[in-house]
């Protein structure tokens, strides 16, 4: 999962700009995916893909900052290179604080963009290497059913199986089955290992 070639995602509502960016990236040998709206990008892209995003800040509907927020919420922050038409310091500050890789003003210099892309992709790969277990954990977490997730939250919170069964209004036997399935899906052998992983992932409990 997510071990393929890094992809440069380009999101801009202007088709002509989108095409030109794709060509420039292709000339440097990058694999690219182009989207003309933020909504489309969030819906279609493979969340496990590595690489970076080139994102136009001002778009109708969801704008660049909205996309950045969503990616952070999803816990899979791809590095973002923002493109902007106008100099807007408060927005730039906000985007950089949220961890933007770079902020380029249109019309952009091709070489500068390519250098930023190379840097961002390197950073993403390094992040993925250093946090392989976390990324793996996240992906595993996403495969849990709602009930398994509830069980996980309660296990991590230190509840006994009996308490969990009472809270969720189900039989102890059923809870034991859910718990075993959850441990197996999360690929952990012990409660301590699960607790450590969850803590590092910073998962918020779901009620």
């Amino acid at each position: 999962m997510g071990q393929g070639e890094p992809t440069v995602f380009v999101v801009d509502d202007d088709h002509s700009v989108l095409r030109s960016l794709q060509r420039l990236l292709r000339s440097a040998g990058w694999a690219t995916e182009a989207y003309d709206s933020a909504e489309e990008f969030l819906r279609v892209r493979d969340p496990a893909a590595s690489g970076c995003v080139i994102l136009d800040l001002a778009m109708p509907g969801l704008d660049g900052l909205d996309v950045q927020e969503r990616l952070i919420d999803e816990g899979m922050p791809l590095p973002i290179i923002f493109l902007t038409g106008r100099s807007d310091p408060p927005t730039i500050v906000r985007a950089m604080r949220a961890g933007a890789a770079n902020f380029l003003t249109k019309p952009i210099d091709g070489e500068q963009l390519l250098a930023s892309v190379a840097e961002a992709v390197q950073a993403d790969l390094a992040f993925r290497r250093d946090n392989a277990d976390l990324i793996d954990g996240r992906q595993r977490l996403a495969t849990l059913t709602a009930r398994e997730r509830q069980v996980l939250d309660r296990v991590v919170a230190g509840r006994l199986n009996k308490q969990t069964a009472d809270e969720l209004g189900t039989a102890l036997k059923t809870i034991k089955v859910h718990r075993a399935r959850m441990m197996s899906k999360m690929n952990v052998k012990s409660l301590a290992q699960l607790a450590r992983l969850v803590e590092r992932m910073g998962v918020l409990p779901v009620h």
Partner: protein
Amino acid sequence: MVGVVAFAATLLPMSSVQPAQSPPSAAAARLPAIWEAEPWHVAASLSLALVVASLVTAFALERRNRRRADAELLGTEQLLRMAAAAGVGLWMHDLARNKRPWANDAHRAILGLGADEATDLPERLELVHPEDREAVASALGAAIEHGGEYAVRHRIVRRDGELRWVASHGRVTLDRRGKPATMWGVTADVTAPTRAELDAEVNRNELAHLSRVAMLGQLSGSIAHELNQPLTAILTNAQAALRFTSQPNVDLETLREILRDIVADDQRAGEVIWRLRALFERGEAKSEPIVASTLVRDVVRMLRSELISRNVSVTLELDPTLPPVQGDPVQLQQVLLNLIFNACEAMANSERWARCLVIRTTAARVAEVAISVVDGGPGVPPERVEKIFEPFVSSKPLGIGLGLVISRSIVAAHGGNLWCKNNAGRGATFTFTIPCAAASVAPAADRAGTAARVAVKES
């Protein structure tokens, strides 16, 4: 005298018939004796008496008619004198008898003609300003062709080179065969009021231009962005092409695509500049057919990034079947820009979901198109719905309160209306109407044809 003879002729038979129809009387009963004694004498006497009576009656009537005619003549003379004193020109042309046209001194004075100069049609058309000649010829031609009245206001260039505005109102009557019989009319020198009107128009155009330039200042960020997009694409495409060409096995098809895009983007940037220049230009208002939906699309395209940065979503409800309107494209763009700007301002504090702008074109009254701008703001307080069209009334902290005043005067100069109405739900709707282009109401070929026929008559 002709009238008298005709009158007598109609009286005679009536008088001769009367005795036969009268019921028998006492006098008639005594008559047979004389009648039998001298029938010829009696007949002759009676006839003579009848003729004398008729003549006396006829003369009496003739005197009465003449007195009446004298009085009428006196009235006409007085009217003529008054017209001359008021500087109203009068003229008449008996086409049927081809007599020399008559005109009063005032008419000659208005046209700057001497006492013995001809005042009929070809000569008068020569005096008409070349730019107005076709319109005048066409109006005259239509009246001559079908009979009836015409009214034109046009410029003349007098022999002394002086330019004057003349209002001319004329009437043509046709004879039984449909040929023009007489033409007469009045003329007035309307140079002063027309100049005042034109000055007012110049002032309005000037003011409209100033407020347009002020509005462009607000728009500058948006315009810069609209230029930036194609420039970005051009630069990026060119840099990609440079990289491709330095690689082995140059992909010609990709290069061709790049060049095609560069050409298209350059044209796109050119259009932005062209539209901008049109808005910056000051000059006389034009009058040309404009398709309302094109007008709306152009303005929305111009405001695209402004709308995006304000998080305003736009819905266009355009009726493609509407006939074109007549007007100045730049001034109408200005009205629409102003209304959209106002709508955005009104929605600045609205929730993001409510920042919806609807621009709609519909058929208004006969031969009018309405353009509405519907916003999702708080609406206009009912007591201010009319007040907002007054000068120096602004709800914006930085507004000078002239936008709507100027918009309304532009729309009024186009013969339309601009008004505001609060929506049933939230927000307000500003609507303006513009009359349709004349060509879309009556076929243009008709008018051209009339003008051509007049030209033939003149030669």
